[in-house]
């Protein structure tokens, strides 16, 4: 074994060690205040915080809301993405879908929610376009569309925001499933498009996108920004209430917030367990369907248009909402029921411009560094796993995913405590390290399955031709993995760009990014400013994505089957 091999072998262990400390510190920072051991919890150690949580009359409603909106939006987003892929795969324009999706990934959740809110509110763009000539409304009607108690608006927003992410993940995994040939075989046996996809491609595909689906489920159940803007408030979802407690000016709500965060953690874990069980039920149903021999060709006539429509509506709503914010960013006075602003002004942009360039530079720097480190660690981990077999540490992998499901407001105090007591200087490096904690799991879940699904016979072939393991990795595997790697980079960059609380708290206010600016400004609810910053936040990673998608085409123009989509 060479020295490099020795080091590589240790990478999973090293990465675990590196990340376990901050993750455990963050988790301890949640656990201890919940039991009154730390933080300013009145009454000292005990279950006071849980009693306070129990006393909140909205608890049952909040838990139910988190559950319903989270599960419903994930099921819908998954069904829509799969339906779209099944309907469009191999058709002209399919590759274009991917290019459209990527910029949508980096739309900040708050901006997406505000855009949608402006679209569908009774005083929103749709109502304005139809008033007063069609509706007769000279003032907005008193209709409960946003913040509805059932969480429909919130579910719609989550579907619109999560479908692009899932679609991108599916597209990255698709090349490893040999989908085209499987579909051809299924079609030649007389299977319909959707049925053939479900029976031949889905099993291989789902195994690869399982982790991203779990991430979406966890995110949808714990989202704060979207729930704040689109969700109900009597009571709000559990995650919103946890944030409120954590932000209480009296400083005494932190224990209740921590207890709420633990309930939320248990809820997410429970739902993931049920989801896992449901997977086996679906598998059994698919097996039965396969054994029945029914070709399901009739399914396509209804199924495909439904899938397209269901995909189109949220996508169009999202785009129209963002376009609305873009118009707001240059709007002068824009009263109801005018469909367009009375005047155009660049005031918002000129006001924001001076700080924008520097903040954009910092944002990009942090994103590049944290994503590059995460990518190197994940690739080394996966390669080590491939060469030396799964490490015993792999069993502890769930630890890496904790930062994705523990609410950030509850997780960060512990992390901050660690940074402070380790004497880490506030500033850039500490913030990049904090970003890594949230970027790495996303890079891992974007890359792991496609990487593991790579056809190992290619390596054998390479070795037979005299290539060493290093050469196989650099010249065969990595080039063939380019599409998933670039998708992982895109996701990593988007995650880093979106971090607000870690940047603010760990950076001690010394590190100013587009997002710290944007979130501070959006607390003022000013659509004009939010519109301007949302465009910038989109533009930055979108440039990166554009590059990421164009690169494989440019580099591997001479190789078939390598490259995105």
């Amino acid at each position: 074994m060479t020295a490099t091999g020795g080091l590589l072998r240790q990478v999973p262990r090293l990465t675990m060690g590196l990340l376990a400390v901050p993750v455990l510190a963050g988790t301890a920072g949640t656990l201890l205040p919940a039991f009154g051991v730390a933080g300013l919890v009145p009454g000292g150690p005990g279950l006071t915080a849980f009693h306070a949580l129990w006393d909140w009359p909205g608890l049952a409603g909040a838990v139910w809301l988190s559950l319903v909106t989270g599960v419903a939006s994930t099921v819908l987003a998954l069904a829509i993405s799969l339906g779209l892929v099944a309907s469009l795969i191999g058709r002209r324009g399919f590759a274009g879908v991917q290019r459209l999706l990527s910029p949508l990934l980096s739309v900040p959740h708050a901006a997406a929610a505000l855009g949608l809110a402006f679209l569908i509110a009774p005083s929103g763009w749709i109502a304005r376009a139809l008033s007063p000539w069609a509706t007769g409304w000279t003032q907005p009607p008193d209709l409960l569309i946003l913040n509805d108690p059932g969480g429909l608006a919130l579910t719609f927003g989550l579907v619109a925001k999560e479908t692009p992410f899932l679609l991108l993940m599916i597209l990255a995994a698709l090349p490893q499933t040999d989908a085209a040939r499987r579909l051809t075989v299924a079609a030649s046996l007389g299977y319909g498009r959707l049925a053939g996809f479900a029976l031949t491609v889905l099993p291989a595909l789902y195994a690869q996108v399982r982790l991203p689906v779990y991430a979406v489920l966890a995110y949808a159940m714990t989202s704060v920004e979207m729930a704040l803007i689109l969700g109900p408030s009597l009571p709000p979802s559990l995650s919103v209430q946890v944030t409120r407690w954590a932000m209480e000016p009296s400083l005494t709500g932190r224990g209740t917030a921590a207890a709420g965060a633990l309930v939320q953690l248990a809820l997410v874990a429970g739902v993931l367990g049920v989801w896992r069980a449901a997977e086996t039920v679906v598998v059994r149903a698919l097996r039965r369907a396969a054994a029945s021999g029914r070709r399901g060709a009739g399914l396509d006539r209804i199924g495909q248009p439904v899938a397209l429509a269901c995909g189109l509506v949220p996508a169009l709503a999202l785009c129209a909402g963002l376009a609305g914010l873009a118009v707001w960013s240059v709007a002068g006075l824009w009263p109801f029921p005018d469909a367009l602003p009375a005047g155009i002004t660049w005031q918002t942009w000129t006001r924001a411009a001076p700080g924008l360039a520097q903040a954009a530079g910092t944002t990009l720097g942090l994103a590049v560094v944290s994503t590059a480190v995460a990518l190197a660690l994940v690739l080394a981990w996966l390669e080590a796993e491939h060469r030396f077999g799964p490490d015993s540490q792999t069993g502890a992998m769930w630890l890496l995913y904790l930062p994705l499901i523990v609410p950030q407001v509850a997780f960060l105090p512990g992390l901050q405590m660690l940074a402070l007591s380790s004497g880490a200087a506030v500033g850039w490096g500490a913030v990049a390290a904090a970003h890594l904690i949230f970027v790495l799991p996303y890079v891992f879940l974007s890359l792991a399955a496609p990487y593991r699904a790579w056809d190992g016979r290619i390596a054998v072939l390479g070795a037979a031709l005299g290539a060493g393991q290093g050469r196989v990795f650099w010249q065969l595997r990595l080039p063939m993995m380019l599409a998933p790697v670039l998708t992982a980079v895109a996701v990593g960059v988007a995650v880093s760009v979106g971090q607000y609380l870690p940047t603010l708290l760990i950076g001690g206010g010394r590190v100013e990014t587009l997002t710290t600016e944007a979130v501070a400004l959006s607390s003022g609810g000013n659509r004009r400013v939010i519109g301007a910053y949302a465009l910038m936040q989109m533009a930055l990673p979108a440039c990166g994505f554009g590059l990421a998608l164009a690169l494989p085409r440019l580099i591997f123009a001479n190789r078939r089957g390598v490259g995105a989509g």
Partner: protein
Amino acid sequence: MAISRRVFGALVGLMLAGQAVAEDWQAVTDAARGQTVFWHAWGGDPRINDFIAAVGAKAQARYGVTLEHVKLAATADAVARVLAEREAGRTSGGAVDLIWINGENFAAMKAQGLLHGPFATDLPNWPLVDVAGKPATVTDFTLPTEGFESPWAMAQLVFEYDSARLTAPPADLAGLKAFMLANPGRFTYPQPPDYLGVTFLKQVLYGVMADPGLLQAPVDDAVYLAATPPLWAFLDEIHPALWRQARAFPANEPALGQLFADAEIDIAFAFNPGRASAEIAAGTLPDTVRTFVLAGGTIGNASFVAIPFNAAHRAGAMVVANLLLDPAVQARAQDPAVLGFQTVLDVAALPAEAKARFDALALGVATLAPADLGPALLEPHASWVTRVADDWVRRYGLAP
């Protein structure tokens, strides 16, 4: 013009202590030169951000102090940082030098010993503050500030309406209720425990309580149970007539302002008498918007800056706090084209040149003249706020 007795007293005091103060202050400005002060302040309003940047330019030019505005979504973010630093044993070199603060955040930080002070009363510009005429400058939600925070802006609750849609605004609380009942769906308030929503509840309490003086003492069970039923009766009566039949509420002051701008409601309110004029000047509200107050007065308070106990750049922070009390800076803040914040200074007692700056300010088309603004009612004791907000959540926190 006769110098008021209070200012005279302050002047005598200044003469006696003047030498020592001047020397001390010289030491502060010397120490401050070259420092970078990190001012953690809510960053949700571009106009306020611009104002802070202008103060920073002045601090740089006059004292060689660099001012960095750390833009927060909530003041609690800065409080959490200081608290974490204390828990981690970092008693010096803290990341937060100055916080924009008041009310409950101040009470909590002071009670936890997280603030440096007293410092405010040592500032050279302190004697200019209208302590007698604006008692809220030294009493923050009934809590004496004791020099642990320095005021920089006055705020008072005013109601806003569009005179193109509503010709005669209500004159008092009963009139406001009559408006709500006659115009279902055209009024709402931010959802408690949001501070502006709670302020509305306090305003109602002032209107329905037999003896509002009780609000100045810490809440007492018997008093509370006797005093609050009229408040709940009032809310029970108006809720069915509120926006969305009270099945949803705006989250905070900006959200309420947005509903008003979108014409979803006809009457809004804000904690800044100059907000409407400033919005009109910025072209975001129609120039037919006007403001009004309720007979008997509306709640008023002050915004402060405080210095954490472990601030790394204490001297620089004090220089900025003092600069915020400079008459030129205060006049700039009061300019309706800039912020429209009311000054904390006693304008009548200022030297002629400084006073002229304030006299030259236009009022703004929608801003009430000081004489029309009515009395500023004192904030109730913070314990009332907690109790009322908790009870609100218990009563109305679940959609009907």
